[in-house]
């Protein structure tokens, strides 16, 4: 195998508001049946990268639960497989991961003991399909030290929450600004990098010696002129979910036929952990329009332009519009939900009304549910 994978899934993100108070961004449910990290993991598996390390730290329980078996992504192999690294206290280290570079540094033995010549570094918070081998081939052809996968954003999108990039004609990166106050470029880094394993070890060790911890600022930006860092542009669908609006928009994208065709129909497919749930059930009184419905759901009310994740129960005369109902939510009779994201495992009492007036509202109720 030519490359191993590292997925940086440790970050917290206050822009996700209440949604990430329970889970890491990488564990956010996507498109009814998936979690964010499934896209990256499936890309790894479909690119024949058989050894993948997931570095987690913040609120990792839900992510660890999702990754409790590697078989769903076909990583249950004798050689390689899926490794989940959380910070541990050792004789010479008592810190949490202090940054992305530090996270890799604290697991440097994993890199040192591997024999794959290249490393693919990614984040776990984007929805996309990618054959990393294509990036790797580009990386080799360019004789690059580091290749950064980047994407041209639409003018309407806010680039300032990403790292913005300017490249010369040969695609070498000239400018790299991390989360700029004012974005001067609409080309952004997707957080996917290709680098030679030996070089990565050197860079990370050097970083650690200088007490620097961040991969972007302390390696990409700092070494910008010293190393040959190239950009690899993608045109396909790529969406980062790490704000509430972006998360909402990414999910709603799946109501578009071309997005469903791309992710659900075209090969290679996206894998996820299988849950043993019965098919969705539509009782008398259910009216469902332009919506995605995941398995285990039971619908008695009206659902429009919405996404129902697994095991949603929609009571009689409920109306759900333009909303995302996460896993295992019970909506009591006559409730009205519009423009909302309802947190998973919630119980919405009968006759409740929630409307996101100015943008999307995140609904978190902590009602006890009594078993039926």
């Amino acid at each position, binding site marked *: 195998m030519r490359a191993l994978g590292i997925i940086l899934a440790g970050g917290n993100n206050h822009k996700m508001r209440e949604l990430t108070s329970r889970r890491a961004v990488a564990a956010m449910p996507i498109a009814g049946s998936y979690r964010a990290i499934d896209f990256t993991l499936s890309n790894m598996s479909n690119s024949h990268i058989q050894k993948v390390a997931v570095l987690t730290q913040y609120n990792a329980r839900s992510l660890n639960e999702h990754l409790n078996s590697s078989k769903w992504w076909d990583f249950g192999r004798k050689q390689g497989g899926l490794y989940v690294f959380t910070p541990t206290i050792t004789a010479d280290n008592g810190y949490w991961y202090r940054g992305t570079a530090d996270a890799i540094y604290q697991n440097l033995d994993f890199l040192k003991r591997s024999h794959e010549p290249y490393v693919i570094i990614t984040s776990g918070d984007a929805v996309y399909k990618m054959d990393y081998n294509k990036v790797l081939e580009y990386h080799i052809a360019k004789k690059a030290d580091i290749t950064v996968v980047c994407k041209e954003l639409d003018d309407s999108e806010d680039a300032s929450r990403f790292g913005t990039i300017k490249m010369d004609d040969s695609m070498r990166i000239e400018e790299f600004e991390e989360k700029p106050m004012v974005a001067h470029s609409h080309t952004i880094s997707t957080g996917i990098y290709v680098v030679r394993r030996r070089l990565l070890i050197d860079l990370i060790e050097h970083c650690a010696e200088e007490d620097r911890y961040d991969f972007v600022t302390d390696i990409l930006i700092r070494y910008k002129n010293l190393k040959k860092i190239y950009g690899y542009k993608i045109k396909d669908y790529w969406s980062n979910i790490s704000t509430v609006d972006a998360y909402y928009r990414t999910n709603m994208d799946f109501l578009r036929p071309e997005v469903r065709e791309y*992710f*659900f129909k075209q090969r290679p497919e996206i*894998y996820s952990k*299988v849950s043993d749930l019965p*098919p*969705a059930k*539509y009782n008398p009184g259910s009216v469902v*329009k332009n919506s995605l419905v995941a398995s285990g759901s039971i619908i008695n009310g009206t659902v429009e332009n919405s996404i129902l994740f697994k095991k949603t129960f929609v009571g009689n005369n409920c109306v759900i519009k333009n909303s995302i109902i996460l896993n295992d939510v019970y909506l009591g009779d006559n409730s009205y939900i519009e423009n909302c994201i309802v947190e998973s495992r919630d119980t919405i009492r009968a006759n409740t009304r929630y409307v996101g007036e100015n943008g999307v509202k995140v609904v978190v109720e902590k009602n006890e549910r009594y078993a039926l």
Partner: protein
Amino acid sequence: MRKKEMIAMLLAGGQGSRLGVLTAKVAKPAVAFGGKYRIIDFPLSNCINSGIDTVGVLTQYQPLRLNTHIGIGISWDLDRNFGGVTILPPYEKSSNSEWYTGTANAIYQNLDYIETYHPDYVLILSGDHIYKMDYEVMLDYHKEHKADVTIAAMPVPIEEASRFGVVVAEEDGQISEFQEKPPEPKSNLASMGIYIFSWPVLKEALVALKNEPGCDFGKHIIPYCHEKGQRLFAYEYNGYWKDVGTLGSYWEANMELIDIVPEFNLYEEYWKIYTNSGILPPQYISGQAVIERSIIGNGSEIYGEVKNCVIGSGVVIGEGAVVRDSIIMKDTVIGKGCVVDKAIIAENCEIGENVTLGIGSDVPNKLKPAIYSFGLVTIGENTIVPPGVQVGKNTALSGATVKEDYPNGVLESGETLIKAGERV
């Protein structure tokens, strides 16, 4: 010595010929049921839920789908270091080689498999019933009564009892008489084809009757044990149990699932039914779709109207199509503008645009009136139905059919149309 207290032997080799074209290419236990399951999922899930982690699955007729479905048993948590699920097809022996000639003969040919686990008890199951049962409770009953053989039995209407093996039991459950498909049943307790044997008793009977042609549990083993004076007990079961051996009962059992609170509830947490369903996206319901009283599997796309249906995974119901009272299995495409009434359409079929299924009067099927009845249209897997044709009731279709096969564009009620070729 490593051992298992009880192992299960699951008979899954039968064709189930009464399901007609549905089982032309797959064994009955592999036929889809309830949107995402296959019939064999029910006994397999019962096993693991009852704490039985060693299951031999005896296959013979068209086993490919069954083998693929079961794999190494991951879906049912039956991938074990010791035990787990094992597929047992007939095999060549040094002295002879024969097919499984009967239910008991199949077990006899796998004595070695059973001996590997040194079981105290052996549970015999068949792969063609829909039910939830805790076999551990049945085993407790077996032990409590110091039985040699325990037969699960359920009360059925007396007029139907002659279709089954009937047991006549004393007050304490001991069986005084066993009648196999009797014309005049003496009791309404029907054997469900689920037996627990104390292993030495079963082994002795299998060896004693090894030369019996077509050796069968109901016809030979049970009467043999009874005559030898062994302790046979009836374990009365009163829950939901459905034999889906005919198209009518198969259709009915599926339709019962769409009741608001069905008698057989798949949504219970307590007794989950597991299946190997693959990793599928959620289903998409379009702005024009109308859905009433139906269950729909993952990855399906509904653009038309669906009423009282059981729809499998990856099915597409085209715009303007109306599908009522039907069972549509995995990956089948119903074209735009179709009208489908009371049909069973197997996996991966293509129904062309503006096809009408289930018209006309209830004329009995000319070829196999006993099989294709109940007013159903039955379509075998990988069938292609060309656009615009009409099909009557009590009909059966299979293969790559073309317009010319339908005189004046109509396949009248009671006709059968079996062609070569299939949808890729």
